[in-house]
């Protein structure tokens, strides 16, 4: 369409300007992207109120993951999806995944073989299995990999010149310049690269079969084998305090232990030697990674856990465009909360109803599903609705989805997430995505001219705290809608009567417009990696 207008005009420069303007006009305001009025009318506050009252009712006992009451909520959502005309994915409205409470098993061993001489170390005193450890026994050469970081945006890679495939790696905690406000990472604030979980994943990605984690001595005095305080080793700690883990990640795990000063001395002669090595890395950000010659490591950790099933609820509408229907726009909200208070006194409210967190977002999701499903006109791209379980346990539902996506992630053009959308000022919504999703932010602002909400942009620090994070990790542009924290956050007083369903309806109308436009536009939106 752009080039055809240009050819009809005599002056190419004018034609160019007009054609670009026309493109912008059509992109933003043409009838093609205008949502069907009928569809918007399907978003009703009264229906949102019904969803809220059910999902946040005492009978659902706080929708803990996993629990029979969460399953009831799942069936309620699936029934609504069906009622609104959404199609089950692969014949099923439920995407089942498993969670488990992992405990330390009995077989845990750590031996260093240095120049042929073996030294076996004692668990808890000399080494401690970490929470990310796997159930495996491995043996291999030991490679020092500095901080164990691969960070292209900082032009830093501890693995640049070493091959760790089939080997065990020794990793320093934290990151270069940890105490330096001017550090090339994020100053004194620990970047995600400094987190052990990310270092271990990076080691696995590079083919390492085991990892030893040591506190970096340059910035920390206490070189202790801090791992995970497994109740079998700390009998005072209650077994029920062990957090749930997502079972699908268990098979990928490798043995990972924190090590003590004693082990550092055995490897380097002294803690000072390791400190000097760290100083050299920090001095010019040049990795000092190397094979520790003459040293082999035997490492075994064992874990046990029983899987329990839970589920995301999914429904979709196939796009009407032959070419674009293989691409999908995802709308998501978590429907779980944190259950009931244990050992509460008789007569005291003990149910965490989670009306705002996140019956509100789930009700909004259902309102969107109703609008898309009941609309006689369908979008060009497909749209997928996901109610996530296990968000409160660590974003499990969205993690499970991106690990085993129902539609290819490379064809997922955007994700809109709703978490806590029913409280605070009646006309204001906070929107996250400024850092990574500037195109979506722009579209959201343009569409909001038809809705009139006040938009606030203070959600960036909460990026990793709701389900959009797992889509962002896969470079999928996202928007995160929330109306923010309040005094009832994670309290038994988070009741349905405190929720403003009219506000939820307004946010739903905005999200519908944004989603409709993204689902109909030929444009692929950008995901912007964070840069210094």
């Amino acid at each position, binding site marked *: 369409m752009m080039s055809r207008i240009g050819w009809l005009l005599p002056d190419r420069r004018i034609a160019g300007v007009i054609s670009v303007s026309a493109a912008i006009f059509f992109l933003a305001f043409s009838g093609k992207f205008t949502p069907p009025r009928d569809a918007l009318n399907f978003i009703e506050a009264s229906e949102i109120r019904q969803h809220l009252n059910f999902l946040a009712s005492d009978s659902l006992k706080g929708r803990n993951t996993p629990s029979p009451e969460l399953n009831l909520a799942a069936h309620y959502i699936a029934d609504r999806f069906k009622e609104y005309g959404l199609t089950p994915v692969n014949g099923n409205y439920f995407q089942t995944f498993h969670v488990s409470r992992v405990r330390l098993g009995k077989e845990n061993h750590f031996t260093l073989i240095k120049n042929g001489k073996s030294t076996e170390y004692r668990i808890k005193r000399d080494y401690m299995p970490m*929470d*990310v450890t796997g159930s495996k026994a491995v043996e291999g050469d030991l490679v020092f990999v500095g901080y164990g970081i691969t960070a292209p945006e900082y032009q830093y890679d501890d693995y640049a010149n070493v091959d760790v495939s089939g080997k065990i790696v020794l990793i320093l*905690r934290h990151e270069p310049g940890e105490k330096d406000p001017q550090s090339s990472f994020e100053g*004194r*604030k*620990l970047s995600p690269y*400094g*987190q*052990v*979980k990310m270092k271990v994943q990076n080691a696995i990605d590079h083919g390492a079969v085991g990892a030893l984690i040591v*506190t970096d001595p340059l910035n*920390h*005095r*206490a070189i*202790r084998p*801090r*791992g*995970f*305080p497994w109740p079998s080793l*700390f009998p*005072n*700690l*209650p077994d*029920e*305090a*062990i*957090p*749930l883990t997502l079972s699908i990640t268990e098979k990928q795990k490798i043995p990972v232990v924190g090590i003590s000063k004693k082990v550092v001395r055995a490897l380097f002669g002294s803690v000072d030697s390791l400190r000097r090595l760290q100083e050299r890395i920090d001095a010019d950000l040049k990795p000092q990674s190397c094979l520790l010659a003459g040293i082999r490591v035997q490492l075994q950790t064992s874990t046990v856990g029983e899987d329990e099933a839970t589920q995301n609820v999914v429904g979709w509408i196939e796009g009407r465009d032959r070419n674009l229907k293989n691409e999908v726009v995802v709308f998501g909200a978590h429907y779980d909360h*944190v*259950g009931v*208070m*244990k*050992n*509460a006194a008789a007569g005291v409210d*003990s149910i*965490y109803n989670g009306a705002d967190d996140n019956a509100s977002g789930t009700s909004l999701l259902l309102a969107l599903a109703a609008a898309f499903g009941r609309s006689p006109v369908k979008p060009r791209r497909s749209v997928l609705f996901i109610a996530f379980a296990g968000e*409160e346990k*660590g974003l499990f539902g969205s993690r499970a989805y991106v690990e085993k996506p129902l539609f290819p992630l490379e064809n997922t053009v955007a994700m809109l997430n709703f978490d806590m959308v029913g409280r605070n000022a009646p006309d204001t919504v906070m929107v996250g995505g400024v850092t990574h999703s500037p195109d979506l932010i722009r579209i959201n602002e343009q569409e909001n001219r038809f809705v009139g909400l006040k938009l606030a942009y203070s959600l960036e620090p909460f990026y990793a705290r709701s389900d959009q994070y797992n889509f962002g990790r896969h470079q999928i542009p996202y928007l995160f809608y929330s109306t923010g924290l309040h005094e009832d956050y*994670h309290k*038994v007083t988070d009741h349905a009567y405190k929720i403003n369903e009219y506000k939820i309806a307004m946010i739903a109308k905005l999200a519908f417009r944004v989603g409709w436009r993204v689902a109909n536009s030929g444009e692929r939106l950008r995901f912007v990696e964070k840069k210094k």
Partner: protein
Amino acid sequence: MQGKMWFSVLMLGLILMWGSQSMAGGKYKLAYKFNKGDQLRYKIETSMENVQERMGQEIQINIDGESVMLLQGEGRDEDGNVKFLFSIESVKSHIQSPMGDTTVVNPPELLGKRKRMILSELGKRIKVEEVDTLVLTGLMAQVGGQQNSLQFPVLTKESVGVGSSWTAAEVDSQVNRGMKVHIRPTTTYTVEAEVDTLGYKCLRIRYKGTVKMTGEGQQMGMKIVLDGDGENGGVLYFAPKEGRLVYVDTASDIDMNVALTGQMNMTMPSTIATRAKMVLLK
């Protein structure tokens, strides 16, 4: 985050308490004296680094503090125990956490509020009672809670001189904001030398020890369990004639695990490294 902050401050209090449990004397009998009318001012400098992991995310909280504490002697009770009032005259704490930096300077609700302590001659705490009503909330409640933690090294009843050594293992319990905490330090003291320090004839005593901490309580509907252990060491100067501490320099490394059950199940391992200096002001 506020939860993590109070925990850190609580730990600082406990560690200071434990860190200061260490002193002794020469061919001397060692005993604390708080004669009526004695006024002792101590300057206390502390720095603490708490590295904590929560659901796989590491969080660091650093607290640097400087305070002046006043101890006013009240003589002895009918059982021969020593009595004194103690209060904070000034305090400045700088807290660094992922939520940002905070500096607390001389909070009026804390300054000058007195408590009375009754202590055995050898340093065993018998009783602490509030003299001035202390109404503290939030972070200040924890800073103020440290006053309860003020404790003294348990001395030996044997006469000691240079080269003498003894081991003290004293169990102590504290209750703070619904948490009951038991501390079991085992500390070995060695008298190294007789020295003149800050105008006092002192015994320089080197000490090294271990500690085990356990605790439990309820907060915000959740059960909280503490389990930790660690080691410390340092040097202290005790003036046997006057029966008072003159200088303490202590460092400790503690692994502390916190388990929460209730609306969330969570176990948070942490390592707490502390350095503290206490000096008697003229």
